[in-house]
């Protein structure tokens, strides 16, 4: 068993940043830096997440530090809420440090409607969305694909959705990577992944994935909010989901493939889940191209869900003569590996940034941002746990300088699913949420209980840390009025 990690092992760099130096463990090649207040640091030390960050810090070819976000919790191999950057070329790529649900992410749609306008029709709207966006165990979508069409989706991402009438051009403009990872190669995606993915486009899935109708509750940055078209009292919609079975199978299949060759490259692993390969090896390159396919599947999936959400608004509001528009604010990934250029210890370097449960948060002026956001920075979408607040933030110069252009991704679990299921009754939770005026459409009461707000950290506390540490800044807070999940 690994050595215990205590608060006094850290050097406190400032109020919200703690460093575990390489002297802590001789295997560490880079330090571990945790963004947290004192209480969140103690939470982080309550499970094995910091041990996982220490394990990762021993991988070859890393630069800077392994960064841990305030919403961290134990993952498999690499913590959820972890960021690391490996040299390109010369470093490694680790599917486990990107996550099984490749390009799990969040999309925010805004409307021109106020809460008062939607309130009388909210229950009907939630039911329409629940019907139009299939969710839950083994759900199949409205967009079954032939093998050829699936390959097109994998190569084109959200562009495929645009070609087939599921998108507006400005949706793609307002998506990370403009909705398409260019290096995707469908020939590198495994046959099993394709088999799992072909019926799943346009589905939400289960677990912590959801669609939520929200109201903009408070504006912190009027300039940023205005640019994104956000105003107090406005109705917005969040979509949280990823690449479904397709992405999971890519991760599974490449972990197996990497396991067979890792000895060739002389890499010693502290945990099999950190399985990796040199980024310039044939295996590493193939994984990057397959991962990009999964990322494109997810971009296209969230785009098709956005289309069906627009359709749901149309079906409910048009017969009532309520004019409306639903536009896209932004769409971001929080499980992804990206080749980016960053300044690290005073040097410009090309690195593979692994973000697992961490959001890209590029500051103002970064190339690759849409024109609309170039001078304010990239919108960052932080969903809270079910029934609690969510936040819209912006990337900052601080995130570029400190965290490879990354920030937190959500609330972060503190209670196991098994414990939540034992302690919380789904029906009771549904009644509690409904008594707060939140409409709930959920396929599984046990699944609802596992995602109870009590099972998560306080998202507001997490957001305060990243805001004060300067690795993102607050623009607006959303509160839920309807939750739709599997």
């Amino acid at each position, binding site marked *: 068993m690994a050595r215990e990690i205590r608060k006094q092992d850290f050097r406190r760099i400032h109020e919200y940043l703690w460093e575990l130096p390489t002297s802590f463990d001789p295997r560490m090649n880079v330090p571990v830096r945790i963004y947290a207040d004192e209480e969140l640091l103690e939470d982080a030390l309550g*499970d094995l997440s910091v041990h996982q960050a220490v394990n990762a810090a021993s991988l070859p070819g890393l630069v800077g530090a392994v960064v841990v976000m305030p919403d961290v*919790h*134990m*993952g*498999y*191999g690499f913590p*959820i809420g972890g960021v690391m950057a490996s040299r390109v070329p010369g470093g490694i790529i680790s599917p*486990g440090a990107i996550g*099984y*649900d490749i390009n799990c992410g969040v999309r925010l749609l805004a409307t021109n409607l106020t809460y008062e306008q939607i309130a009388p029709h909210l229950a009907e709207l939630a039911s329409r969305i629940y019907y139009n966006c299939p969710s*839950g*165990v*083994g759900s199949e979508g409205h967009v079954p694909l032939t093998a050829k069409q699936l390959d097109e989706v994998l190569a084109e991402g959200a562009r495929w959705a645009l070609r087939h009438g599921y998108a507006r051009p400005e949706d793609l403009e307002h998506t990370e990577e403009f909705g398409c990872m260019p290096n995707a190669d469908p020939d590198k995606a495994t046959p*099993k992944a394709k*088999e*799992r993915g072909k019926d799943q486009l346009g589905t939400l*899935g*289960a*677990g912590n994935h959801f669609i939520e109708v929200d109201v903009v509750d408070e504006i912190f940055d009027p300039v940023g909010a205005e640019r994104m078209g956000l105003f107090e009292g406005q109705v917005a919609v969040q979509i949280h989901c990823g690449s479904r*079975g397709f992405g*999971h*199978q890519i*991760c*599974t299949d490449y*972990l*197996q493939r990497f*396991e*067979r060759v890792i*000895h*060739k490259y002389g890499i010693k692993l502290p*945990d*099999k*889940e950190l*399985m990796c390969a040199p980024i310039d090896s044939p295996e590493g390159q193939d994984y990057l191209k397959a991962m990009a396919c999964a990322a494109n599947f997810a971009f296209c999936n969230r785009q098709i869900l956005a289309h069906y959400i627009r359709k749901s608004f149309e079906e409910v509001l048009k017969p009532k003569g309520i004019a409306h528009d639903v536009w896209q604010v932004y769409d971001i990934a929080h499980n992804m590996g990206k080749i980016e250029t960053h300044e690290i210890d005073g040097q410009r370097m090309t690195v593979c940034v692994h973000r697992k449960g961490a959001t890209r948060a590029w500051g103002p002026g970064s190339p690759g941002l849409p024109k609309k956001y170039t001078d304010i920075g990239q919108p960052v979408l932080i969903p809270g746990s079910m029934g609690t607040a969510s936040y819209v933030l912006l990337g900052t110069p601080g995130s570029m300088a400190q965290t490879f252009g990354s920030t937190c991704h959500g609330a972060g*679990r*503190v*209670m*196991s*699913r*098994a*414990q939540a299921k034992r302690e919380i009754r789904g029906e009771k939770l549904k009644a509690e949420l409904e008594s707060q005026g939140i409409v709930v459409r959920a396929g*599984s009461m*046990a699944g609802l209980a596992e995602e109870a707000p009590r099972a998560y950290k306080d998202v507001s506390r997490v957001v305060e840390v990243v805001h004060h540490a300067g690795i993102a800044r607050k623009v607006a807070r959303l509160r839920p009025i309807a939750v739709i999940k599997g």
Partner: protein
Amino acid sequence: MSSPAQPFEEIPHTADWAIRAYGRTLPELFANAAMGMYSLLVDLDALGESERREVEVEAASPEGLLVAWLNELVYHTEREHLAFRRFEIHELRLPDPGDPDSIGRLRATAYGERTREMRKYIKAVTYHNVAIQQDDGYYWVELVFDV
């Protein structure tokens, strides 16, 4: 450590589901791990055996074989809405620990039936700290499922 009187048990994990499986032999451990996984998804006693699937996997380590075996079952479950309750391990050949290029192999049959009523959806069986352990005449292993 509990005694291996039970074939498997559920254990807590913050983000996901986890089990500990036991077996007097490695093939029994592999079968019990699969049974433990399906006990999270369905009521095993109520499940029939109208379907069977032959499974063959290869991997570079005993743990790799175990994870590959369970992931192969997960794949059938997602594609065909199949849940399994009984497992016959026909061949379990471990890789030679002295030869890094050696590949192990497992051949098995899984019996179960189609069901739309599954409690959970396991997206992947992870390698998270997976290590097959041996104690007084029995094997045990902890497995974490990504859900």
